[in-house]
């Protein structure tokens, strides 16, 4: 089992190293002729105004929160799914209760209109 994780560690290192190496080689091969106009921030050819730390719609953050709730609750279901063949019908009924709570959260968010993209 430990060997598998060793392989995974090596694989992740290699997966990071190969694109990094490709970018490095391309950096050596490519010309470097910067000038102020070329290096300016690209916004459709207009001059940039202000900083990029502008306000965004609150919608993005609400989606983020809803995602967080759902993902965490679904991760809690995974151990149940692994043990599914061993639990009795009662276990399934319990999960139905669990998912009903999850779904009522979705219904609440839906009713509050947080899922509308405005």
């Amino acid at each position, binding site marked *: *089992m430990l*060997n*598998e*994780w*060793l*392989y*995974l560690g090596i*694989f*992740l290192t*290699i*997966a*990071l190293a*190969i*694109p*990094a190496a*490709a*970018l490095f*080689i*391309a*950096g050596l091969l*490519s*010309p*470097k002729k*910067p000038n102020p106009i*070329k*290096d*300016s*921030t690209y*916004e*459709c050819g207009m001059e*940039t105004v202000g900083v*990029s730390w*502008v306000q*965004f719609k609150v*919608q*993005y953050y609400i*989606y*983020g929160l809803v*995602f967080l709730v*759902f*993902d965490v609750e*679904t*991760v809690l*279901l*995974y151990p149940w*799914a*692994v043990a*599914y063949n*061993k639990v009795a*019908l009662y276990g*399934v009924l319990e*999960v*139905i209760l669990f*998912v009903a709570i*999850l*779904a009522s959260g*979705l219904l609440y968010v*839906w009713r509050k209109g947080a*899922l509308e*993209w405005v």
Partner: protein
Amino acid sequence: MNFIYDPVPWVINWLTQLLLGWGLPINLVNTLLYLVGAVLICLGAMLFTTMLIWAERKIGGRFQDRLGPNRVGPWGIFQSIADMLKIFTKEYINPVGIDKIPFNLAPILAVAAVLAIWAVIPFSETVFGANINVALLFIIAIGGLGEMAIILAGFGSNNKYALLGAFRAVAQLISYEVPMVIVLLIPVMFSGSMGLNEIVQAQKIPFIIYAPVACVIFFICSIAENGRAPFDLIEADSELVAGYNIEYSGLKFGMFFVADFLHAFTSAIVFTTIFLGGWQGPGVEQMPVLGGAYMLIKTLVVYFLMLAIRFTLPRFRIDQMMALNWKILTPLALVTLLVTALVDKSIPHEMTLVRIGALVIVNVLLWLLADRMITAYRKRNPIQVVTGKARPLARPEILPVVEKEAAQ
């Protein structure tokens, strides 16, 4: 062990014996072999991507009644290699005000997040990478790393459009992760394990027959996770300037596209592994190498289906896409999970045919439910007709007087 029947373990065995014969300790030999395997798979996948790009452009051309690449080499087969050579020699433009570390880390992370999935894929019964028991969670977690790359790219560029594009992309990707993660519970339930090897071994009958609705939901979500048409709002070039990768140039820009093409193929592989039975097929027990061939054929079919969808359907609007996810796919995924669990539990597993029959009937009912949900959504949100008036034809008598005089 015979070379013809199972070449890869034969080679690994031979290399192990050779290295042990040189007097190296067994741990070092294993580490070296892991290193070689990882480099081969990563490099192979990256180089395979050039072929994927060519295939995608060629097939896409045929779908849209064009020729596709046809100049460099026979059938334009070297087009991607020419493109690769060109992009390697392009200048990196580093705009003023970028945050250097996230800006440079993002393209690397985008590719690495896709490549890392290949570490846990079982290619055949005897050829697999890490056989960890949480492989599905690993795939989901690594998928989250790709979203990290996008937000790093958007933030590091110090550009309003890039940041806006990154926000939109992440909103889409995390939303579609929810039904995907819910639906992935079903194969875990059937096989009783999160390891991909066990999931494939449990699929004497592929899970697509047990759970077709779950399978379709997963397929839709994996297309959306790729950010391809009809869900290509990440790079909606007619709406955003270009999305999160606007400030990138040269190979840094190319890396995002390598990640994109590779991700499409990788999700076809994951789909094949989880729902289509991976390397399972007739005659695999005697000849494990056949499993790799079955896997490749199934993956290519799924990939072709993805291409067909990509080149046929127009783009969703972002509110429609979000509504599809949160108001249709997520409730449907929850209902599918519960109903499948309940029906599967109430029928003993020895009665295979009854079990399959019941599950198929349940899935037909679920399909009808999905149809009802979409119809209800369409009723609540009718298509707005923006133009109703017929425009006048451009005839000489209705032309403005000035133009008439100018014509004379």
